[in-house]
């Protein structure tokens, strides 16, 4: 029984079958990649996992509890964090503040009216946030506005913000899209380090095969809304069905 169990999920948009009978099981503490050609339904699947979309049929269970029908912030509070394709950070806030917010969210829950308390008195939270920034090599920039950082650093920050919540499952949606090679490699190293050091499950959607094969322990190939195969990276590499799906698309 994996930490994330997707069973018989179907999703239609009008006449288009975006997901057809998707079954997926993600093992706890593994790195699981979901790959597939454009339009295979990867993003739709991801959106079903985090509550942005609700599938027509089927079930999505996280750690034995259904996520369907829950609001995105509730799903996050269950222990699922998500990294977006384009970094979603608080651009107007400083890097340090960016890092403090998820720590607040973990401690205080979805809403707390702490209007008269002072931020600077929250020594614990500031300490944790600074420690996280230290680990991410962002400590020097802690007082700059997050929006003025490089894309690579924004990505680091976003991953760090997700990690600050100690999630049990980290979902990454093409984390290296549009990045320079050096930034991509940095991100790979960061993710490797995370999965080695922490008890965390990582599910990653990715186009870049270099990223996928350097990280993933298991790979699911999605094509036209249904899983084609699921196996280890070595077996996936030579799999005839996978080649067919990709060659048909990208040749």
């Amino acid at each position, binding site marked *: 029984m994996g930490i994330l169990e997707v069973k018989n999920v179907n999703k239609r948009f009008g006449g288009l079958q975006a997901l057809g009978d998707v079954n997926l099981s993600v093992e706890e503490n593994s790195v699981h990649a979901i790959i597939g050609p454009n339009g295979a339904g990867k993003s739709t699947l991801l959106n079903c996992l*985090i509550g942005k979309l609700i599938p027509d049929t089927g079930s999505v269970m996280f750690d034995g509890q259904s996520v369907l029908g829950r*609001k*995105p*912030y*509730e799903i*996050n*509070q269950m222990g699922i*964090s*998500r990294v*977006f394709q384009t970094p*979603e*950070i*608080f*651009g*107007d*806030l*400083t890097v340090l*503040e960016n890092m*403090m*917010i*998820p720590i*607040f*969210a*973990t401690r205080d*829950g*979805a*809403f*707390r*009216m*702490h*209007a*008269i*308390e*002072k*931020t*600077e008195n*929250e020594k614990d939270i500031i300490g944790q946030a600074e420690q996280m920034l230290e680990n991410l090599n962002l400590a020097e920039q802690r*007082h*700059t*506005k997050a929006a*003025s950082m490089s894309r690579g650093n924004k990505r680091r920050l*976003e991953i760090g*913000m997700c990690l600050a*919540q100690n999630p049990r499952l980290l979902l990454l949606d093409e984390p290296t899209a549009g990045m320079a090679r050096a930034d991509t490699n940095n991100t790979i190293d960061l993710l490797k380090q995370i999965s080695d050091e922490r008890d965390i499950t990582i599910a990653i959607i990715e186009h870049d095969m270099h990223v996928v094969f350097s990280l993933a322990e298991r790979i699911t190939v999605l094509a036209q809304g249904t899983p084609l195969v699921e196996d280890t990276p070595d077996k996936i590499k030579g799999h005839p069905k996978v080649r067919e799906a990709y060659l048909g698309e990208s040749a």
Partner: protein
Amino acid sequence: MLGLNKKDTALFLIVIALTILAPFILNPFPTNSAMAQFNAGYPDLMQRFVIFGIFAIGFNILFGLTGYLSFGHAAFLGVGSYAAVWMFKLFTYNVIPAIVVAVILAGLFSLLIGYISLRRSGIYFSILTLAFAQMSFALAYSVLSNPKFNLTNGETGLQVYGDDPQIFHGAGLPNLPHLFGWSMRGNNQMSFGAWDFNFNTGYYVCAVCMILAFYIAIRIFRSPFGMMLRAVKSNQTRMTYTGLNSRPYALAAFVISGMYAGLAGGLMAAVDPLAGAERMQWTASGEVVLMTILGGAGTLIGPILGAGFIKYFENIFSKINDAVLHSWFSFLPDGLEDVVVALIYPFVGKGWHLTLGMLFMLVVIFLPGGLVEGGQRIGRFTFRRRDAKGSDAERDAANQRNPAE
């Protein structure tokens, strides 16, 4: 001091000093001099400065921090005014219960409207609040003033009449709003040589309220809650996927700003026990938007500056008529004088709104940070010219500038 950091304490002390000393500061010209028309130190205007200051400070907590642009905040101000006048009518002329009830009722009303309006965001939110405010205006103006159920007294405005119950009204108390016996209209005029200074009870009651309101605003800005509100403005997607529910945060900000508006409305009634529906009209909501933007949305001091600026120039500009203009430019040759006066005339007197509209457009286009940003730019400019070497350090400081400053 009082849990504020050094910079905020300084700012807070400056605001306290300015409000307490306002009767002096605003009357720099001798009473009988030609410049006396630029004096603003008379009670009525000073009261307006601080009351609209409160209104704008509250609006800024919503708009400046969360970015939700409400076009209906005058409705809460109106509710506050009506509530206060009803307290005068039913119970007592003492302003304390009136103000408290005004704040509470405005808070409840904004909870209701905010709960519904905040289900949408962006322009839909603006239009929903606008629709609610216009509806409240229509209700107050006509619907709720029918003979069977006269809550607002329609066009005439709600006021206190001789046959109102006023059950706690004591015999020795003034027959006007008062603070434990001190009439709000009480005024001490002090003369120093050619100068006259007015010390008005109503003004000081309002000023104390504003200082309190400003203090609470600083605390909110510097609290984790304030940080969350800025997060709402910055990126709601990230907020949601960080496990935070942005709606109660926005709603809390909405209600707080509604209560500020209620306080302003209550004070308006306290200094002049009359409440009219036109206070709720959307032009009044537009005015507080203008004040906040003009001063600098999202800054602490901006709304107060904006409110003072608009109210001051509204007062001064409206007084300038063509006779005044002619006397100013009488040193010019006749033909030229007429041309100059004709050019300026549309912008002063009754044309004040034209000036305001243009000024506002200019600010939105060129100076989105308002007067505060303007001041900072000027400061940086002079600083840089004086010390070219320090410019790097200055740029760093500018980068590190807390956006909530």
